[in-house]
């Protein structure tokens, strides 16, 4: 089937196999390999992207379904300079191996779009669908707080 979608602000038209997952489409068709496939069963959150501004697990969304919709991946976050979330992960040492980082940032972006000044508890709850197997959760929370502070000026 043919789909037309906007990925990171760019209009994309492709012919795909109907059963293609969004995660596979992004990585293999568009070479946007910042979206990671971890568990591939919608548990770990490494594949999180924004679909029309909301965080979704792209391993469990059909690419067919984003026809006519807007997708943002980690590659769409920086605009010349680092996004405050990316800067926060760098400054607060919010990553060790880095595998979970893109998913963490996309889920945190969804949170900050709904709640510009989240409490530590709200950050932890909003990230419950993202696993860090290096277990560096404390600094991930600090990174999100850093971004919220920076975005609030």
């Amino acid at each position, binding site marked *: *089937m043919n789909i037309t979608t906007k990925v990171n602000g760019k209009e994309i038209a492709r012919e795909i*196999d*109907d*059963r293609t*997952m969004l995660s596979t489409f992004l990585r293999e068709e568009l070479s946007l390999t910042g979206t990671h496939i971890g568990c*591939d*069963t*919608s*548990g770990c*959150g490494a594949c*999180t992207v924004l*679909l029309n501004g*909301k*965080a*979704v*697990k792209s391993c*469990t*969304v*059909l690419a*067919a*379904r984003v*026809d006519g919709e807007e997708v943002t991946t980690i590659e769409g976050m920086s605009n010349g300079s680092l996004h405050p979330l990316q800067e926060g992960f760098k400054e607060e040492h919010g990553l060790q191996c880095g595998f979970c980082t893109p998913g963490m940032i996309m*889920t945190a972006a*969804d*949170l900050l779009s709904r709640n510009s000044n989240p409490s530590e508890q709200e950050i932890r709850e*909003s990230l*419950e*669908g*993202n696993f860090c197997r290096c277990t560096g959760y404390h600094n991930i929370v600090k990174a999100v707080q850093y971004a919220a502070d920076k975005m609030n000026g």
Partner: protein
Amino acid sequence: MIPSSFTYKKASSVSDALAMLKEHGDEATLLAGGHSLIPALKLRLNDYGYLIDISKISELKSIDDKGDHIEIGAGVTHGEIVDSALLQSKVPFFSEAADLIGDVQVRNMGTIGGSIAHADPAADWPALLLAADATINIHNGSSSRSVAAADFFQGLFHTAVEEGEMITSISVPVSANAKTKYIKFMQPASRFAIVGCAVNLEMSGGTISSAKVAYAGVSATPFRDSAVEATLAGKSLDDATIEAAGNAAADSASIMSDHFASESYRKQMAKVYTKRALKALA
């Protein structure tokens, strides 16, 4: 993981979806949020020739105040139920329960209609619909029918929906004198209910005039517990009543056992969570 081949079709309306269902018969199934269906397809536990995507049908997406009840479209997501000011004020245990489902990403995609159509025994909505005495509205293309929640959930992954039918909405009665609560003991990774307890008390002053108490995750089929309800009816919500109601929980149920919780542990947790839910309302 790659599912078996299928043809994807996007439905633009309820009648469009039902026409596609009729055309393809049991080769087709409906795709809502996809968070139960797609993992099953990827694991090749299920296999369909056609997926009919109903996620973009606008008539399934509203939450409407109908006075004595609220009508929730089948395509409303868990996240939209969390955020609904109408449900937060009129049927608060719906918003509470929605906030306990999966995680943010799952709540952004998963729908109430999809969840109840799937009828996973560990899903939360069946207990809520039973305790709210909700009605499920179903369409087949030429006529519609309404099924009480008590008749809707018929067993493990089995509901009253027949071939060629789809759920269009859920009607939830509203009462100004109701006190509601939903809490659960959850599997920590999936957040599915090991024991979910939904309580809906109709109050008359300080007295419980009637009670509806339902459980998710305990049995293969969600159920209301008439023994607990009888213990509560006509009483005030004091410590002795709460203790007696909790002790009565799940005594006559056929209880599941799996690697997360044994039968006796589930039964004990049903009692504990009944007491906690009632205490939260006291």
